[in-house]
């Protein structure tokens, strides 16, 4: 069965990504080994697809097996060289947050919930991605169609089959070709276009998001709360749908998560060397964010850069970072955005591609849009998409506002800027159809879901103490009564 080509297709990109992350970390390790492998897999895949795109677009290197392999080997060599020069770190990653051993009851609860999540993920991913054919509109018109066109044509064809040659590039071809190219790569290894194989990559991004959430939480909190966070993410119904169906938003979500959490870790790290390691990785991930979807460049990158600047100014004012260090960090970010972001931006400009959601951003009118608030309200609070996550999150942002706007200001600010910014677009521009039809609004939340769950878990943990104390008091009293 062709699905077994999936791990084969991930080996070289993962190695490249892993070595590049080691190079970015430098002498001071900050990532756990498993975390680095997962980030390396996701980041390496995007990076090698970016280089494949650039090689095809600028050097006419065909998108066949030899072409892809050449790019993969070149990336591996460059990343290995970078690792050799800077990445043979001698300082180990700091230990994860100390954790009391879990009680037997807690282990049982975690075990049961873990099995429940595993059952849902395995059954839905195998059924929707492998055992059934491609069904959803955007997959047929964009993600899989482009991948197949690239596979057959062995080049980056911008005009989709049976479409107008002038208008077609301004549609789906305006999206970064990362996801379709990944499918092309997998099909190229297998030698044929197989829906089961090329769709199976999507669950990799989903599982990666859960694993990276776990490690990010472990840096800040205990094992129990990290597992609670993973359970919360695994229980999100619409996020599970996106993780087990061939759409591009779960892919974007894991990239947004990597870029933001590395920034978060860097700005909140006390040790200077570790801070630099985190921020170098954050710069790398921010650069890769430009090659995900248009939202990566237009919606998520600007607030991250704003938070970076404000964060650096704050650290400088509190004498925790020098001006020279700030310049160094800005240089990493600028360098990463130029090297990783410019090839795609120049290509878009040269080919007249747009920046909107499959339609030009500049074509939107301005004015109050009817029924959008109601539609958003229903989608957020009264449907089955997010369980009770948003009442919980908004309640926690109010109740635990001290934590939300102090130690957790980075994810809080990012979420609020993006969420409120998108709400303004939905309420006042022609993008309102994305909210009224519950398309763009929900997808925006899917793209931020790991970040939202991270923030919710951290705030929940900060507010749980009185409840845990109450539970222990009552449990003790019951034991005394029984005794």
């Amino acid at each position, binding site marked *: 069965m062709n699905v077994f080509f999936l791990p084969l297709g991930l080996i070289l990109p993962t190695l490249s990504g892993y070595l590049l992350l080691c190079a970015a970390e430098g002498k001071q390790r900050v990532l756990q080994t498993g975390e680095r492998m997962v980030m390396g897999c996701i980041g390496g895949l995007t990076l090698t697809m970016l280089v494949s795109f650039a090689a095809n677009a600028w050097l006419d290197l065909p998108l066949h097996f030899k072409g892809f392999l050449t790019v993969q080997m070149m990336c591996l060599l460059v990343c290995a060289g970078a690792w050799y020069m800077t990445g043979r770190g001698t300082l180990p990653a700091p230990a994860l947050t100390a954790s009391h051993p879990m009680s037997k009851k807690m282990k049982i609860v975690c075990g049961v919930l873990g099995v429940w999540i595993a059952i849902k993920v395995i059954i839905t991913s195998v059924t929707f991605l492998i055992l059934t054919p*491609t069904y*959803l509109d955007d997959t047929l018109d964009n993600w899989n169609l482009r991948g197949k066109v690239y596979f057959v044509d062995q080049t980056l064809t911008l005009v989709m089959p049976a479409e107008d040659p002038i208008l077609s590039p301004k549609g789906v071809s305006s999206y970064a070709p990362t996801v379709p190219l990944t499918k092309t790569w997998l099909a190229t290894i297998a030698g044929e276009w197989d829906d089961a194989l090329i769709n199976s990559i999507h669950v990799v991004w989903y599982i990666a998001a859960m694993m990276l959430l776990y490690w990010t939480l472990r840096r800040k909190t205990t094992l129990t709360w990290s597992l609670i966070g993973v359970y919360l993410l695994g229980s999100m*119904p619409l996020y599970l749908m996106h993780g087990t169906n061939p759409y591009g938003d779960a892919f974007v979500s894991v990239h947004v998560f990597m870029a933001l959490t590395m920034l978060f870790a860097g700005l909140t790290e006390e040790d200077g060397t570790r801070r630099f390691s985190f921020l170098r990785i954050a710069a790398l991930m921010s650069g890769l964010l430009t090659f995900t979807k248009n939202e990566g460049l237009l919606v998520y990158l600007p607030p991250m850069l704003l938070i970076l600047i404000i964060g650096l100014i704050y650290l400088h004012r509190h004498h925790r970072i020098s001006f020279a260090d700030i310049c160094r960090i800005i240089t990493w970010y600028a360098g990463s955005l130029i090297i990783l972001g410019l090839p795609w931006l120049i290509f878009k400009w040269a080919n007249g591609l747009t920046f909107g959601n499959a339609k030009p951003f500049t074509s939107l009118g301005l004015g109050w849009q009817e029924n959008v608030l109601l539609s958003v309200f229903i989608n957020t609070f009264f449907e*089955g998409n997010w*369980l009770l996550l948003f009442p919980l999150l908004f309640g926690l942002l109010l109740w635990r506002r001290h934590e939300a706007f102090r130690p957790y200001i980075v994810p809080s600010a990012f979420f609020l800027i993006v969420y409120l910014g998108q709400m303004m677009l939905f309420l006042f521009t022609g993008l309102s159809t994305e909210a009224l039809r519950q398309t763009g609004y929900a997808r925006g939340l899917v793209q931020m879901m790991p970040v939202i769950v991270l923030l919710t878990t951290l705030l929940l943990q900060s507010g749980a103490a009185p409840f845990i104390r109450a539970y222990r008091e009552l449990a003790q009293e019951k034991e005394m009564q029984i005794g």
Partner: protein
Amino acid sequence: MHLFRTIGTLTLLCIPLLAHAEDIEIWNFQNGNMPETLSVQQLTSVQRTTAGLAITTSTDGFIVWRDHPLPGPADVITLRVRSAQPAEAAILWPANPAKPDELLQLFFVMEPSNDFRDIDVVVSDYPQWDWRTEIFGIAFPAGTSVTIEQITFRHWAWSERLVEGWKSFWTIDEFRPYSINFLWGPLIATTEPARMKLYDSLPPVAWSAVRLLYGFIIASVIVGSVCYFLSVDKRKGRAHALMIIAATCIASWLVFDLRMGIELLTYAKRDISSYVLPPEHQKTLRTHSNFYSVARSFLPEISRHERYALLIQQDTPFYANLRYMAYPSIPVTDPQQMSGSTLYVVIGRPDISLTADNRLSDANGAVLSPAGRILQRSGNDNFLFLVNQ
């Protein structure tokens, strides 16, 4: 112990409620039976027959009973009808009793059949429905030919509504194209017909069960607060209050997670039983019926042609599917550009047939292709047509 005794007593006291069954009142029109106050407006023919009330009309019109109260509160009106053609009729009643000629319309569809079939109209879904009305009618469009055997007015008792509400909480939607953008989640219906059609309309005419979860959480805060204020030991009272709130929130989340998890697993189960396990010619998938089997059987021939004319219905998603599956062969759907195609792919078009000189034509007689022959069939509505060289 005291608490369990209280709960047990309350449960026993509620048992008599379960004995109160659904109320049913029937207007039977067989053998010429009829409420006397019927009047007919602009319908060509309305006759009492042994089978029921036979209505045939070439103009729009309606029948109405005036000054005739309905038998009682009605949640569902069931019409048992036999219709010769598909038609969209409507139940009529006045929005304002003071303006009896201004009638509201609640549409329902009658499918053609040789036998009598029940059509359930869930009137209680609409806040405008007034069961106390003394004016009740049914409107028919021109071209209708229908016999109404009986009209049943059904009302559910509270206990039955609770049972239906519980069942509807666990009623699952289908995996549809919109499921990647939103999931309706659990909905509450209080009658069986409403539950059976829960997700049939967009948006569903039912309210979200999430309201109940919010209700439970708010109730837990109130109960917890009362426990705290009434407690003698405030420390203990506070602990109890916090536990009540936390337990309710956690239980609500887990129940909701279970419900939505079952929904997604049910989607997978349906896919496995309808698509994965059956043999190729019996596979159906979600809203696409047997499209994939049909398309796969046509692909070998399609792949021999650079382009193919594609004749499908406008409102189907099959164009995108076939364009993707058949690439690099390109579909042509513009009739003015089809002339160069040697292969015509017809999918889901029962209206297309062969003329006497072996050309494709539609139901209006418009010729769609040059002369050729049917190369391959898959069912009545799907075939490949090869133009004579």
